[in-house]
């Protein structure tokens, strides 16, 4: 987790003659904040900077926090920031909230629960709107994590939107994923297990001072027992917390450390990096090829004709694509 070759974020003064990348590697908050904005807004300059920053990333430990709305994800993040700060670690947070599909606007309010850390130079918090992206994160989230990682933050917390079912993306972004639940969801656990069992490395039953806590914990444990892991596999622990009262936070920190140790000792960390790299490469290749081909047929003013032929059933979309791709390969 150490980042010895990096400057402490926030301590360096800006220098006008430095490139964006140098300023970020130098720990300059404004430069990093701006680059994350450029990534979100799809600016070409961001892509250039990422090319360099990517090779400097890979030091940070990334923890995902997901779970239904109101489960207490932000409050838990707040306590985890405090606990990691207590260990002397520098902590960055990326918190994703939904963008309104009607106006395109968003109220990003995850900071409300963590903003006491805003005056701590060892903490960086960034809010993001989903901007139409499904899967619990925004399209820019993993690149933002790369920027913060390269910058030298030891711990990066990623808080998802909180729909509770469709958040598989966090698994490819975070080394350790926490799924936060609240008591009283007993029957619902059955309904959502398909999405959730695969995501969680650690289950957190927050608000564990509520009456249904024992049942929720038992239901989760039963579910996990049915999913018997092979001998070397990690069985997700179930941790009870009351984030607002600080209860259970030190146990949660222990479990996070245990999972990290497991990733290192089992070789899972290497596999995680392989899968993440393959995924990112495929995504970028897909995006790039699509843009290239699409731009070309649009530039040659053929898109309209092709679409008309498909509408009129003179051409089917499968043949249309095959032909375009054959041209492309020639």
């Amino acid at each position, binding site marked *: 987790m150490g980042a010895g070759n990096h400057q402490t974020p926030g301590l360096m003064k800006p220098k006008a003659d430095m490139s964006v990348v140098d300023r970020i590697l130098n720990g300059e908050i404004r430069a990093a*904040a701006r680059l994350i904005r450029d990534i979100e*807004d799809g600016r070409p300059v961001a892509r250039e900077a990422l090319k360099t920053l990517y090779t400097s990333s890979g030091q940070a430990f990334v923890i995902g926090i997901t779970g239904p709305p109101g489960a207490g994800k932000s409050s838990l993040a707040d306590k985890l920031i405090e606990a990691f700060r207590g260990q002397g670690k520098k902590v960055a947070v990326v918190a994703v909230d939904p963008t309104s599909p009607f106006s395109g606007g968003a109220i*990003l309010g995850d*900071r409300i629960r963590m903003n006491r850390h805003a005056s701590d130079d060892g903490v960086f918090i960034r*809010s993001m709107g989903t901007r139409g992206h499904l899967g619990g994160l925004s399209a820019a989230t993993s690149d933002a994590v790369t920027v913060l990682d390269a910058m030298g933050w030891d711990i990066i917390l990623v808080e998802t939107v909180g729909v509770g079912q469709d958040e598989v993306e966090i698994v490819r972004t975070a080394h350790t994923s926490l799924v936060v639940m609240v008591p009283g969801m007993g029957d619902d656990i059955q309904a959502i297990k398909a999405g959730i069992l695969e995501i969680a490395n650690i289950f957190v039953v927050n608000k564990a001072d509520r009456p249904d806590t024992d049942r929720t914990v038992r239901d989760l444990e039963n579910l996990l027992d049915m999913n018997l892991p092979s001998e070397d596999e990690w069985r997700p622990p179930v941790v009870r917390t009351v984030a607002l009262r600080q209860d259970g936070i030190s146990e949660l920190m222990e479990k996070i450390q245990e999972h990290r140790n497991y990733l290192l000792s089992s070789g899972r960390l290497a596999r995680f990096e392989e899968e993440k790299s393959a995924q990112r490469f495929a995504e970028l290749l897909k995006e790039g090829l699509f843009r290239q081909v699409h731009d070309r047929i649009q530039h040659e003013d053929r898109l309209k004709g092709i679409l008309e032929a498909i509408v009129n059933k003179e051409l089917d979309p499968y043949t249309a694509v095959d032909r375009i791709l054959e041209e492309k390969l020639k």
Partner: protein
Amino acid sequence: MSERKLRLLVAKPGLDGHDRGAKIVARSFRDAGFEVIYTGLRQTPEQIVNTAIQEDVDAVSLSILSGAHNTLFPRVIELLREKDAADIPVFGGGIIPEEDIAGLKAAGVLAVFTPGTSTEEINRWVRETIRPRD
């Protein structure tokens, strides 16, 4: 190239007891298509300025009901300057007497909206005045 989305910080410095006005403004900004970062009650000027920088906002809007506006507005502007972020404009509103407005504007506050201002009016002003920083 895709267009920049406007990002605004809605913040409440000082000891105000409620944030209904700030929430109404935040919601109308969202409905106007802006991204609003909302931090909740009782923020220090330091927290507000650090938040503005980390979130890369295009403007900071402060809501103040406590009567401490003559101290809090200038303090936020001063801190932005200290942190090389004077390019982030500050505007705001709340229970602010007419006679204080000229002084606040002289201190660098771009606009002051008092009770009775419609959210449409504020949105129109934001659209005309605040540009995504490039």
